[in-house]
């Protein structure tokens, strides 16, 4: 969203304002419910009126999301939401556009649109609900499912090496990359707000539990008992520490991060998070940190500025009009050469 288009008077909305009348039809216990609530909370604070929001989704359980938001919404076709959102945003740059996608929708059939949308840096927000499974089609492995996973379509174990969504986003030259978790409600609300504030494509991976077809896919990270030791909450400018008492830290050894005890190495030795690093190297390294060798980083990995596609497109329109005036249709009709028949 252009800050210029923000209305002058601050708009006061509550999460309830964003609840549509539609019955929510996810399975009881699905992680999508929490994401929906956090979204409604976050948007209430963004300061835009409801009608300025548009939710665009593909197909999947996650993609049902727009129906439940009392905003404009477009439940499109499988994998194409980033492309549809691109046209929407270019044609109507005043809108705050949110793409809701799943690991299948966004990384399997829709992987290419996702990448190209990110590299063009459209000013929109993409939330990828990663449940490591195809939920809506009842449980086939997805591009993020772990190697060897047994599912309906891989009864003897998948032979596909999974893809790392954030790493793909970084490779696609993303300007905003973050991760959060369905059950980390406060963190999720903050992450969504950060995404909303970023001008450019904000890409957020959200770990989401599919209770029916892939329950506890993130249990080894999100279980209350272990989560403090398995999750690294990234904070800009702060040394990377984790553990119940923040007793562990991340240090760099050559090009390889390593887990250290803070009291053994001292806080100074730790890597300090810099989401604004113009080089994507640190953000890339962070995407490589995976359980069980490392805690899983959540928060904002990368947050840099780059002109947006829609911004530049509209600027070119404005500039050309300034230079040449509003187009003269008669001239175009006449073309390069005419003659008169009498």
């Amino acid at each position: 969203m252009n800050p210029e288009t923000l209305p002058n008077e601050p708009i006061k909305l509550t999460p309830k304002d964003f609840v549509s009348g539609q019955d929510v039809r996810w399975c009881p216990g699905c992680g999508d419910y929490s994401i929906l609530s956090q979204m409604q909370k976050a948007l209430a604070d963004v300061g835009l009126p409801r009608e300025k929001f548009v939710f665009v989704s593909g197909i999947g359980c996650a993609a049902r999301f727009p129906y439940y938001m009392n905003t404009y919404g477009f439940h499109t076709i499988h994998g194409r939401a980033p492309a549809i959102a691109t046209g929407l945003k270019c044609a109507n740059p005043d809108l705050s556009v949110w793409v809701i996608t799943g690991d299948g929708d966004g990384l399997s059939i829709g992987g290419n649109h996702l990448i190209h949308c990110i590299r063009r840096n459209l000013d929109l927000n993409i939330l990828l609900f990663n449940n490591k499974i195809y939920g809506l089609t009842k449980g086939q492995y997805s591009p993020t499912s772990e190697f060897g996973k047994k599912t309906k379509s891989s009864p003897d174990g998948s032979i596909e090496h999974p893809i790392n969504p954030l790493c793909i986003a970084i490779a696609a030259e993303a300007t905003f990359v973050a991760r959060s978790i369905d059950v980390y409600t406060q963190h999720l609300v903050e992450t969504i707000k950060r995404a909303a504030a970023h001008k450019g494509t904000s890409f957020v991976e959200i770990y989401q539990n599919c209770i029916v077809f892939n329950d506890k896919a993130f249990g080894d990270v999100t279980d209350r008992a272990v989560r403090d030791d398995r999750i690294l909450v990234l904070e800009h400018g702060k040394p990377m520490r984790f553990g119940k008492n923040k007793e562990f830290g991340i240090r760099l050894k050559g090009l390889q991060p390593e887990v250290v005890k803070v009291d053994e190495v001292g806080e100074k030795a730790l890597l300090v998070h810099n989401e604004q690093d113009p080089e994507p190297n640190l953000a890339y390294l962070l995407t490589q940190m995976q359980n069980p060798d490392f805690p899983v980083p959540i928060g904002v990995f990368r947050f840099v500025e780059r002109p947006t596609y829609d911004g530049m497109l509209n600027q070119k329109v404005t500039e050309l009009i300034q230079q040449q005036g509003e187009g003269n249709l008669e001239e175009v009709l006449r073309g390069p050469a005419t003659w008169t028949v009498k």
Partner: protein
Amino acid sequence: MVRGAPRGTQGSTNEEDSDPHARAVSKKTRQGIDRIVVRFAGDSGDGMQLAGMQFTDTTALVGNDLSTFPSFPAEIRAPAGTLPGVSGFQIHFSDEDIKTPGDEPNVLVVMNPAALRVNLSDLPEGGVIIANRDTFTENNLDKAGYKENPLTDGSLSKYRVISLPISTLNAEAVKDIPELTRAQADRCKNFFALGIMFWLYDRPLDYTLQWIREKFSKMPSVAQANEKALKGGYTFAIATEQLPVQYHVNPAPIEPGLYRNITGNEAVAVGLIAAAKLTGKTVFYGSYPITPASDILHELSRYKNFHVKTFQAEDEIAAVSAAIGASFAGQLGVTGTSGPGFALKAEAINLAVMTELPLIVMDIQRGGPSTGLPTKTEQADLLQAFAGRNSESPVAIVAAATPGDCFYMILEAVRIAITYMTPVVFLSDGYLASGSEPWKIPKVSELPKFHIVHWTASEGFYPYLRDPKTLARPWVIPGTPGLEHRIGGLEKSDVTGNVSYDPLNHQKMTELRAKKIAGIAETIPDLEIFGKEEGELLVVGWGSTYGAIYAAVDRVQKKGRSVSAIHLRYLNPFPRNLGEVLRRFKKILVPEGNLGQLLLLLRGKYLVEATGLHKVQGRPFQIREIEQKIEEMLRWR
């Protein structure tokens, strides 16, 4: 050196088929003729398209009616001098109304052996060949697959060959210009040849001279060289004995007005730019490059100050999807492609069918299936447009009849899309796309007006309410307060637009979608019959066959036979009076650039015993082919 000695006419009684040059007998006379077809051919690097276009512009300026058709080398770029590298440009001009670029050239200008080899089979016996003999070297002959030099081995005896050392003459003409490299000098030879042709057909040089000066204003030596080449060719023609006759074609009786020359793709682009102006909307053009549609993208990308935004997408699916997004945003979503890309867009078009959003999908058809003949024309995507999507998926279909008609049919597509909230498929083809014709420039004030009303009131709003007349649903611009709503590809409940799996609702909505499209016929003009209102034979065409069909029907009508023609520019729905018109004729002929697609629809819908004439050769119908079929059918019992 003239191998093909002048001969008498080939016995054809038909004016348009005859070879006017054959009538040249005495020396340096000036002779009036009614029509002529010239084809310029050479290597891609020889500048034949440019020469052809300059000849076209001047021909237009002198008031002839004309029609042109370029033929490019296949998609690959071939080494100089080889057969696949040959590029051609054909122009038909006349003192009467003409409708096609001509069945075959009367005159073939060839700049190298490959050009001769590729084009010779199209030249009728007795046709004239003007050849740049300097290029008929061993090496070039070899590349063209000639063992012997055809200019000298007698193999062209059926033609009248005018063999000229154009490269040498050209080099001579430009030799004194300072700072001109040899390569630059040689590159002027198309203008030398053009100069010859200008004399031969009695056309003035000024327009091209002016063009040269403007084009090369920053390269004075190149400008000077081209000018000298052009004039050199002209003077050479005056002097040489090899060209005894100068021909003159009188202006055609053309409707008065301001004219320009226009290709189909240009007309599409101009139409879309006009649509942006006339609707007050942004035209959002999402496209992925593909022959022969790419030029529309190129053209439109230069008109941002008309609120035309182009988006070169990562593929065709993204292109149409983005266009749908733009339509959802309340602007004019347009996408354009050719056959293979059109196939890829099918799933997304259906999203626009279900969500009832305006969308223009332009398919500039080419030879297929698969990659097929990418640079060649064909008309075989009609059924794909009609039914190439999952389930019952009615869309409107329009097709342009001539290059200039692309402008009007694009405006019609826009009108239908926004009036009826529906995708509209616009069909053109490779022949229309790059072929050109003189086009009477419409006054802006005479163009249709578009009044788009977006729903803004929050009372009584439902996303799938319907306008009682058009059955269109409301078009709401996201951002409108109080109208927040959600649409999508799942079946919709009537009126509310909520997701619905209700059996009877699905039947109702399926029928409503079909009925809405059928209802467009109410706003489609009735067919006008060319010829008698009833009779023996009706020829039914669509798309680019218009010119050849009407010319053929005209010829046979002039022989006093009972044959009429209609041309369909609306393919779905059909004009209201189509069924009735069809039934007024005993026989029906449907010539198409496919194996019978309109034919199937006509027979299936109206149960009329129509016959097809199918040409799938990557090139348009010749008038003669249709004429023969008409004659044949008129003989049938």
